[in-house]
């Protein structure tokens, strides 16, 4: 078939005139006659994405309606290119040969008498599948160009990413009341001290008041006993506060001083004998 294929069938004059839309720059100079220089062929092969791309090029170049492709001249043109490439022993993808076979098959089916109108459903246009593929591929070619035209990051834009300042304040661990309870629990378990350290709810309040009284004495110096009690505080609070004073005295953390009966009672932090002033 090589001899036959090398005869280019002329494209009908009325459709061949206008210059084609080109996909690759090198194609502009591609000769359409029989002699195609090997260099040009190589460029040519690189320029096309495959047989569909080549067919689209030929169709657009001939300016024929894709919906009514003249199969005979198209097939002939296609085969010219394929055969030229084969004769130059260029590495030709198998897809190109497969397409050649398909074109020849369609062309021969086109030569068969058309089935009667009634059986139209049966007799599909032999070109239908090829046209569908060509249109879908052309659509994707256009989509690829459109995608590439969308401004994108690292080409038309850069992301903004300002440095986050070094942390100035260290994040402090969080502690919950439950953490403390569990810590205490662990202590108890370890030391088996549960029996010795039973602290009731009330006792804890007493402890809080004990700290409070000590803190005040520490900051304000000696106080009168009644200064320790807030006027109008709830009775329960007065009682707890009083218990705190007693507990502090019992633990020798404060001293209660009364110079004479019914004189004001003074409260001060405990002092060692050496430090204490003589009363």
């Amino acid at each position, binding site marked *: 078939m090589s001899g036959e294929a090398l005869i280019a069938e002329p494209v009908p004059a009325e459709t061949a005139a206008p210059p084609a839309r080109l*996909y690759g720059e090198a194609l502009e100079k591609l000769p359409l006659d029989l002699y195609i220089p090997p260099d040009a062929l190589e460029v040519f092969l690189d320029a096309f*994405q*495959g*047989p*569909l*791309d080549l067919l689209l090029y030929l169709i657009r170049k001939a300016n024929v309606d*894709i*919906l009514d492709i003249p199969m005979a001249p198209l097939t002939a043109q296609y085969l010219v290119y394929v055969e030229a490439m084969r004769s130059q022993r260029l590495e030709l*993808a198998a*897809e190109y040969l497969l*397409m050649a076979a398909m074109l020849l098959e369609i062309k021969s089916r086109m030569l068969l008498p058309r089935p009667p109108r009634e059986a*139209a459903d049966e007799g*599909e*246009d032999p070109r*239908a599948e090829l*046209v*569908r*593929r060509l*249109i*879908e*591929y*052309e*659509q*994707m*070619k*256009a*989509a*690829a*160009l*459109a*995608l*590439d*035209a*969308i*401004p*994108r*990051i*690292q*080409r*038309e*834009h*850069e*992301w*903004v*990413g*300002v*440095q*986050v300042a070094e942390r100035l304040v260290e*994040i*402090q661990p*969080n502690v919950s009341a439950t953490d403390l309870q569990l810590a205490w629990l662990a202590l108890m378990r370890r030391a088996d001290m549960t029996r010795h350290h039973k602290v009731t709810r009330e006792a804890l309040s007493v402890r809080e008041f004990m700290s409070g009284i000590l803190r005040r004495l520490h900051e304000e110096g000696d106080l009168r006993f009644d200064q320790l009690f807030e006027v109008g505080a709830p009775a329960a609070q007065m009682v707890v506060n009083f218990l705190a004073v007693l507990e502090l005295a019992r633990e020798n953390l404060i001293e209660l001083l009364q110079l004479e009966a019914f004189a004001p009672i003074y409260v001060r932090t405990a002092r060692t004998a050496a430090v204490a002033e003589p009363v």
Partner: protein
Amino acid sequence: MSELPEQPQSPSPSEVKRVLEAALLASQDAMSTGELRKLFEQELDHALIRRLLDELREDWAGRGIELVQVSSGWRFRTTADVQPYLDRLKNEKPAKYSRAVLETLAIIAYRQPVTRGDIEDIRGVAVSPGIIKALEGRGWIDSVGYREVPGRPALYATTRRFLDDLGLRTLAELPPLAELQKVMEFNDAR
């Protein structure tokens, strides 16, 4: 919680806007309004955040930075008109993709999810593994599953990052496919 400095009960809109701007400028990724709300201790209204983002976008109009809404949220990027300046600092030119890569990307974008076989059917040629790798490497496509046919080929789809990088919110914002009606005309004509 407790160790943070005390804050006013409810930050003023201008303070919220100031924080939004700083967070968006400093973020390495786009931020959704949901994420942006997490900046604040108080539960701020989605509508408020949204309004302030629109304000920010307008505040920045005409400058060298723009606030854009992309698929994964809001992000600042440089405007296209300052790019020629920024390009002078670059040692390498931005990647230019071959037609094979771009066509493969287009088929995945418009026809997803697709297998390599589907892509080859449309393009009419074999798709080299390098093309798929290049697109995966850019983070623009990934495999989202397998088609349950012999060989279980991977199904590819575009990623959120693809949309983000192209400044799109959804696939619906892709340029519409051209000439689809031609196929229909052909079918109708017969």
